Structure formats: structure tokens, C-alpha cells
């Protein structure tokens, strides 16, 4: 067991290096360096000598690999430089906005579970009957609507026409989280309803279910005590993995609802070409995503020796 965890952690190292390296290269590819931006922001022209001095001070005259190492040390110690625009330390800003995004992600995930599991089960149990068709139809619609379109429609109906919820996020208490949550959860729920349905159907066709049926166990009992338990694992794993797309999806929704999280921060930073902020966003989002996956994997494996063995084989 320990061996597996250590192994997974070791595997993480090249990935993390890759993430930081890629982000670093990406930012190097951008046209301007910090000194050019500084010149722009102060409004005054700097002489080439002044610029060179500033570059030396920031270590920008060093060869790239050396710059990368210096920069990586900064990242590890929470020093990711200062925003080109506001001059605030990037990491502090990021950390201060992260809770809002995470709160939104968590509520969306919970709502997704609340919608997709009952609907998916119902759909599977009533396969090829009215409820199944209806749920599948609705999930198709949910799956085909871009989330920015959904947000606009939700705002229009629920904020303007009905006046139930506020338009802007972070403004008036708990109510403001509802519409952004719904926007994010609708698309995800549509996707997972279909997956829940497929998983439950697969389980229903397994031999032990047929056997139970043959022994005369009641359908409901089979469903709740065997099939659901068995399906849950797959479903919950899928949900844990969906955190990635959720983290990315918040960017659009946060900007529309003025939700003051890291997604909106990133979109704002992009319009301003505030590279250090974009960089912090990319790296930390990727790291969070990787860690969530890792934790899921490890615990999953703790309890299922079969998977552990299989993975070790594949990994080795």
C-alpha cells in the first residue's frame, strides 16, 4: 500500500515539473517581458540602459534554464511576482480569490449529484419508457446548451422576470450563488445523468442481478441494495474527475455573474495581458486538479486491492 502511494507521489514529480515548465514557456512566448510592461505602466519612456539595468535586477538577462529555476523557486515559496496591472503580489491575490471559486465549484458539484443520480437511476430503471425518454431528452438539451447561453437565459427569467435571485455574484448573501451554481450544474448534470444511467444499466445486466431475480428477490431490494452500491463507485469517480472541467468552466460563468473568483480574475487578466496573473491561474488550477485526482486514486486503491495490482502492473 505504502509502496503504491510513494509510487504515485513520485509519478507526480515529472507532471508537476511539466506543468510549471509549460506555463513558463507559454509566458516566455508572449511578446513582452516584465520590463516592457513596467515601461508602459509608468507611462514614461525608459532608455535602453535603464531597461537593461531593470532586466538585470529582475534576472531577465540570465539564460532561460537559470531563469526557470529561479522562477520555480519563487513559485514553490509562494512568490509569483507582482501583477503588471495592479502591482499587487500575484499569489496573495490568487489565494484571496480562490475560496469564492471553490465555493462555487463545490455547490455546483453537489447540485450535479442531487440532479443526476436520481434522474439517472430513474431513467435506467424505466428504460425505454416515458420517464427514460423524457430524462434523456432533457439531458440532451442540457448537454447541447453552451453555459454562457444558459446563464443569460437564467438571469433573464429568474432575476429580471421573477426577481428571485440577484444578478451579481458576491453581492447579497447566499442567494447570489444560486444562479451561477445552476448554470454550471445543468450542463454537468446532463452529462452525468447519462453516465449514471449507463452504469446502472450495465450493473442491472450483470449475472448476480439475474441470479437475484431468479431467486425471487424483490426488484427494489436488488436496486437499492446491490445495483446502486455497485454503481456508486464508478459514478463518484467520474464526478471527482469532473472537477477539472468544472474549474475551467467557472471562468465564463464567473465573468457573467461578476463572481469574484479566480476565473473572473483570469479573464480580466487576459484582457489586460497581465501575464503573471494568468500564469498563477494556470499553474495552480492544474496543480489542484492533479491533487484531487491523486487523492481520489489513492483512496480508491486503498480499498480495492485488485485495482492496485492492476495499476502497478500497468505502471511498471
Amino acid at each position, binding site marked *: 500500500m505504502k509502496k503504491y502511494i510513494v509510487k504515485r507521489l513520485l509519478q507526480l514529480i515529472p507532471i508537476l515539473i511539466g506543468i510549471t515548465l509549460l506555463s513558463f514557456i507559454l509566458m516566455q512566448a508572449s511578446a513582452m517581458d516584465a520590463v516592457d510592461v513596467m515601461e508602459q505602466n509608468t507611462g514614461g519612456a525608459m532608455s535602453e540602459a535603464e531597461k537593461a539595468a531593470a532586466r538585470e535586477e529582475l534576472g531577465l538577462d540570465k539564460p532561460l534554464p537559470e531563469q526557470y529555476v529561479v522562477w520555480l523557486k519563487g513559485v514553490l515559496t509562494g512568490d509569483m511576482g507582482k501583477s503588471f496591472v*495592479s502591482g499587487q503580489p500575484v499569489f496573495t491575490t490568487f489565494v484571496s480569490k480562490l475560496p*469564492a471559486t*471553490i465555493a462555487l465549484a*463545490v455547490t455546483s458539484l453537489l447540485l450535479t449529484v442531487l440532479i443526476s443520480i436520481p434522474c439517472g437511476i430513474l431513467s435506467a430503471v424505466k428504460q425505454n419508457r416515458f420517464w427514460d425518454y423524457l430524462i434523456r431528452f432533457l439531458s440532451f438539451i442540457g448537454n447541447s446548451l453552451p453555459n454562457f447561453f444558459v446563464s443569460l437565459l437564467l438571469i433573464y427569467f429568474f432575476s429580471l422576470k421573477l426577481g428571485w435571485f440577484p444578478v451579481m455574484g458576491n453581492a447579497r*448573501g447566499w442567494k447570489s450563488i444560486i444562479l451561477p451554481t445552476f448554470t454550471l450544474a445543468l450542463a454537468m448534470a446532463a452529462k452525468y445523468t447519462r453516465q449514471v444511467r449507463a452504469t446502472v444499466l450495465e450493473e442491472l445486466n450483470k449475472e448476480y442481478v439475474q441470479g437475484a431475480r431468479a431467486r425471487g428477490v424483490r426488484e427494489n431490494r436488488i436496486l437499492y441494495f446491490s445495483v446502486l*452500491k455497485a454503481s456508486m463507485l464508478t459514478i463518484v469517480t467520474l464526478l471527482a474527475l469532473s472537477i477539472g472541467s468544472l474549474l475551467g468552466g467557472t471562468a465564463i460563468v464567473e465573468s457573467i455573474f461578476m463572481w469574484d473568483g479566480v476565473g473572473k480574475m483570469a479573464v480580466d487578466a487576459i484582457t489586460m*495581458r497581465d501575464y503573471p496573473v494568468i500564469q498563477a491561474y494556470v499553474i495552480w488550477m492544474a496543480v489542484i486538479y492533479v491533487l484531487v485526482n491523486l487523492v481520489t486514486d489513492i483512496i480508491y486503491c486503498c480499498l480495492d486491492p485488485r485495482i492496485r495490482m492492476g495499476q502497478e502492473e500497468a505502471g511498471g
Partner: protein
Amino acid sequence: MRKKRLFHKKAGAVLLPLCLAAGLLSGCGGGSTDTKTEDNASAGEKVFYYGDTTFNAENDESDVNPHNGYSGWACIRYGIGETLFKYSDKMELEPWLAAEYEMTDENTWKITLRDNVTFSSGRRLDAQAAKECLDDLVSVHERAKGDLKIKEISADGQILTITTEEPVPALINYLSDPYGCIVDMEAGVSEDGNVAGTGPYIATEVKTDTGLTLVKNENYWDGEPKLDTIHVKTISDGDTMTMAMQSGELDAAYGLPYASLPLFAEKPYTISSVETSRSFFGQMNYDTPALQDEKVRKAIAMSIDKENFTKTLLDGNGTAAEGPFPANFAFGDDTVTAPKYNPEEARKLLEEAGWKDSDGDGYVDKNGENLTIRWVTYPSRQELPLLAESVQATMKEVGIKVDVNCSADFQSFLDKGEWDIYAGAFVCAPTGDPEYFFTTHCLDESSKNRGGYHSDKLQALEEEMKSAFDTEKRAELATQMTQTILDDNAFIFASHLKMSIVSGEGVTGLEAHPCDYYEITVDLDKN
């Protein structure tokens, strides 16, 4: 059977990290605590929500420190700071923190301050405090330094004496620029850019790009502010702001998209609109060979449909411009003329200049190259992308290809010289005096003369302007100067902004002001 139990355990196991994550994260979700306090402010307290598009770093208004870029605009707009003099609705100067002034000679100004004013820090406003503030201003703020040309300031009780290096006829006007907000330098500037001013409200929380919180200044010198708390929300998205206004989340809003103004035409909303000297204009790059040809510049000027742009795209919220100043100025649009929209004539001019569509692709060319204009502009002023797209279509009619580059990062394209026409918005007479526009944009040494425009005639007129103290004389010079740049077609002025503030139910005392920077005042109230 064993298999089943196993599955059960595993399900729990996978749920665990999820719940863990959820708990951990919602624990961090401290963001919700401050929202609750906003909700609780009910018992008799007057809380006001104000939506604004401009309080952000993009507009160089990252805090409320008047000595930092254009942040003075935020300082004065939100009633935090006040200047020595201010403008009336007719753009005439009035005393504000100053009681009166006197010019003892061309270079010396004696300003008497009011004696009943205190800063929100508790310090009394005297000449010494004003001196400290202005000294700091000219030492850190390039634009102010260039405008004011201060040699020395001396303080004696309530009397502030300013000596300039050379005659500065518009000194009082410049002191009324938002950068001239008098703040207490002893209290200093906080880390988040907050200052102690003399205005009706005090900022308690300043968050770049997000907004600020203002509370009533109990010791305000000019009446009692009527609201207890004001939340200024930076809402960069005009549509979100529209809907927030409709749903009642905002009590008033500045910078709503024109397309949504009709939604507020009826009760309970009121719209206060005013013509401002904020103009949208294009600046020609004289480094572009094609644009060095007078005929090409004129053809371009003739292929912009200003009338339809203001009437249709701006929904009538603006007037088609001739020059930089709207008609309500003595040196405004009524006194000058610019080329009218005339695609026929424009085509003819291009042909005379040797530009013909020889390959039949719809664009005129010369030596095998199409006439292509790189139009650089930025999106934070909603009119600019509209102008770009409209120009793109009308110039295409004439045979000019326009590549629009609309980016918040426009400055880097200007710096790299990757542009032919730069379209921007600028308040051309923020102080009611015309000289400012020319000194910033049109002269050899102007910092915003981005296209390298030069005119001997203009330089000569500016020499006269520099030392002209008589208002009428200045107006006349301004007219001549405007006509000069228009005849050269170095600038094309598309329209003047009509600024609108929408107030919700029960809101009084919020009036749009022609100079665009007096918004929240002591009169603002909500019933």
C-alpha cells in the same frame, strides 16, 4: 457476495475525498461573511449601491490616490476628495475648498482657503496641508508637473501662494483637474491606495477592479451627507450592470450600454444626460507612407459616416463631431468644419492619389499592394469597437481595407508602431480650457502625439496661446488651432459622448455633469 460489500466500501472511499474537499473548501469560503454584513444593514441605515464601469486598472484608476495616474477621477467621483476650485454646470470656475484667488503677477497666484474644512483624518485644512499635497503631486505625477509648472509654493495660515516657472494662464483650471484633490499627506496613502480627503464620504475599503465601500463623513464641512454607506461596484460588463439595475440590486449606474438605456426611459427610473467634451477620435500615423499623402487622409476622413454612427449605433447618445470640442464651448464645433461623409468624393481623391482597384478584389491598390489601414482601438469604451466596425464597413465601400485590432493592450501595438490609425476616447477639455488638448496631442513635444504630426502653423499658434490670458482671445486661438488640425486631417473626430447616469427608484441628487467627474456629492439621497 464478497464483491458487493467491496463495492460498497469503495463507494464510501471515493465519496470521502469529495466531502473532504467540500468541507475544506467551504471552510475557506470566508468570502461569504462580508456579504452578510451588507445584508444586515437595514435598521434605518441608508445603504446605496452604485454601479460603475470605470473603477479599474484598465482605466488607470486602480485606487483613489489622486497622485496615482488617473485615480484622482475615482477620488473626486465618489465624493472622497475635493479640489480647490470646481466647475459649474456651465463649465465656469467656482471656488470649492478655496474661498477666492488673486493673481498678483503673471507668475504668482494667491489662493485663500476656506477655514471650516477638515480632512477625514481629523486634520484641519490649512495652506500648509494643501502645500504638502501639491508638492507631493508635482513630485510624483508627470502630467500634473507638466501642466502646473510650479516653481514654489508657500503657505501662510489659510493663504497659499503658488509661483510658476512661466505664465500658466490656465493654472486655476489645472488645479481643478481631479489630480488636484487635496488630501492629507500626513495621514498618507495606505497600502491599498486609500487617502484622507475632505469630501462627503470616506472610503473604508478599496479593492482594485472590484469596487469600494464608502461611509458618511460625519464632519463634512458643506452640509450633512444623507447616506450612511455607499457600495461602489466595478462592473466591467455593461449587460450585467443593466440587469442588476433592473433587478434593483443597484440604485444607480454609470456607463450603461446605449442599447439598454431605452429600458430605463420610464418611471421609476430617471436618466440624467449631458454633453461632455469626451470625444472619440482617430489619430493618423504619419510614419505610414500611404498616410503621408494628404489626399489619402482626406479620403479617409470622408469615408466615416459620423451621422449614422451617432444616430444608430450610439442610439442618439452623442453628437457627430467636427473637432475636439462640442458645440456648447465658445470654441466648439459651430466654429470649425471638417470634411463631410462623402464616399464618392473619397473614391475620387484616392484615384487622384494613384490608388485604384486594378485587381478587382474590391480594394484599391498601388504597386500591387492594397490600401490597408491597421485600426488600433480598445474595448473598455463601448463606443470604440462600434466605431471600428462601422468604419470598417464604410471604408470598404470606398475601397480601403481596415484591419481592426481592438485590445485592452493597445498600448503595446502603438509602442511597436504596428498601427496606422489609433482610435481612442479622450476628455478634450477636462478643465474647460482648450489648450490642454493641443498640448497633449498635437504639438511636437506632446506625449500623446503618437503619429508624429507636425504643423508649423499650429506650433506658432500655440506660442501665442501659451501667454494669452484673455478668455476670448484663447477661444479664438483654439478655433484656429482646431481648424488647422482638421485641414491637415491629422485627426478625425467622430463624436462627442453624451454621458448618462441612470437613477433607480427614490434616488435624488445624482446629476450628470459636463466634465464627467462629479458624481457622488453631498446631495445624493435615496428615499
